[in-house]
């Protein structure tokens, strides 16, 4: 019963990730692709949690934290690069 629902959720997340990858390829601007990659990282967090339920182990739970941190840092760095052209800037005026 629980395994069947976990399989259904894994198939649903796989279909959702295919749609997100389609947006990451097609997106007209750079920011579209960054949004799609952020959503892809967040979906990977959910897939990791589902696999840890399926395998009855709590080993993968650090991977959840690492994926969340990496997705957030990547989004912040990309937004600064899109806005100013530099990730670490020395300009204090704005």
């Amino acid at each position, binding site marked *: 019963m629980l395994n069947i629902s976990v399989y259904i959720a894994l198939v649903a997340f796989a279909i959702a990730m295919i*749609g997100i990858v389609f947006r990451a390829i097609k997106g007209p601007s750079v920011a579209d692709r960054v949004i799609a990659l952020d959503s892809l990282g967040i979906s990977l967090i959910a897939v990791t949690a589902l696999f840890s339920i399926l395998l009855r182990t709590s080993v993968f739970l650090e991977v*959840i*934290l690492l994926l969340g941190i990496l997705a957030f840092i990547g989004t912040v760095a990309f937004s600064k690069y899109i806005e100013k052209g530099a990730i670490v800037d020395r300009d204090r005026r704005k």
Partner: protein
Amino acid sequence: MIDVSEYFVAAFILIGAFFGVVTAIGLIRLPDLYTRTHAASKSATLGVMSVLIGALLFFLTEEGMFNSRIVLGIFFVLITAPVGGHLIARAAYNSGVKLAPETVHDDLSKKEQYEKKKNSSRD
């Protein structure tokens, strides 16, 4: 013999999967970057938080231990995903991404005129 807790875990997981599919549909169908940020930040956050709450309940009933790492993951996703969506939307507006043709109101378009007027009055 099926525990009652398995039904709760399965319900949380299926709700999370539904919101994941809603995120993908929103990212494909919506016409504009600024509407897609709403789909990505709100719906994906809710779906992942539901899946993580399901995992938390599962490990609570399976092993009898309260996993603090999943609580940290829930809190971190709750804090950071909307912040990332807002940062990307602001960077896209400042770099000149076009709005959808169905847009009826744009508050930020008056900001440059306002700043220009303020600087000219100061000089």
